[in-house]
């Protein structure tokens, strides 16, 4: 199982704040998860998840798109931060 969160404008765009993927045998990288969601959820998701400035975290640490993902991990996709 991999839990995936979405935040900010991205969450509004795809109208989802989190999903759970149960079958994760082939989803062993951030890039594979992104491709899987882009293909299975339609063009709105595809466009939103492939924006050039999207930030991705695994277990609450920002990573690059080739980062490894394991069963049980927590992944998040979000726009650049605007706090402070």
């Amino acid at each position: 199982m991999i839990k995936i969160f979405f935040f900010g404008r991205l969450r509004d765009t795809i109208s989802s704040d989190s999903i759970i993927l149960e079958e994760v045998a082939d989803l062993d990288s951030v890039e594979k998860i992104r491709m899987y969601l882009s293909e299975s959820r339609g063009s709105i998701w595809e466009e939103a998840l492939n924006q050039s400035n999207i930030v991705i975290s695994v277990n609450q640490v920002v990573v690059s798109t080739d980062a490894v993902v394991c069963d049980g991990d927590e992944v998040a996709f979000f726009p650049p931060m605007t706090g402070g």
Partner: protein
Amino acid sequence: MTAMMVRLQEELFDPGSLQFTLFSETRKTGGIVTFTGYVRAIDSNGIPLKSLFLEHYPGMTEKSIKHILSDAADRWDIESIGVVHRVGWLPPKDPIVWVGSAAAHRSEAFASCEFVMDYLKTQAPFWKKEETEEGVKWIDSHHSDEARAARWATS
């Protein structure tokens, strides 16, 4: 050892009380630098703001702020440093964020406070949206903020 404080809260905070607390925990501090960020009264188009919403990523937010403070404590000789950041809906003119740094020498207090602010803007998972009479709109990140954070990378 640098004392560190991180608070995320919906409630209003008082910069003066936070500075008093920060200072009361120090022994050799000669100076405190603070930054307080406030909700603007108007948006970037000059339209009056009704409110500002701060979303965050519970868990990751605290972790990333602690990481930023540890970085600051490694780089500068500071006695105590703290961050208070609000989340949720805030009215215009309310304080959003407070950073305070206490050190024996003012140069270290200034540098560490500015460093923490620059990293908070770009590394801590917060997202702002503004509400005006025209509706609600997510705020885009600023290239200037990324440039300011990048300044510290080589120092």
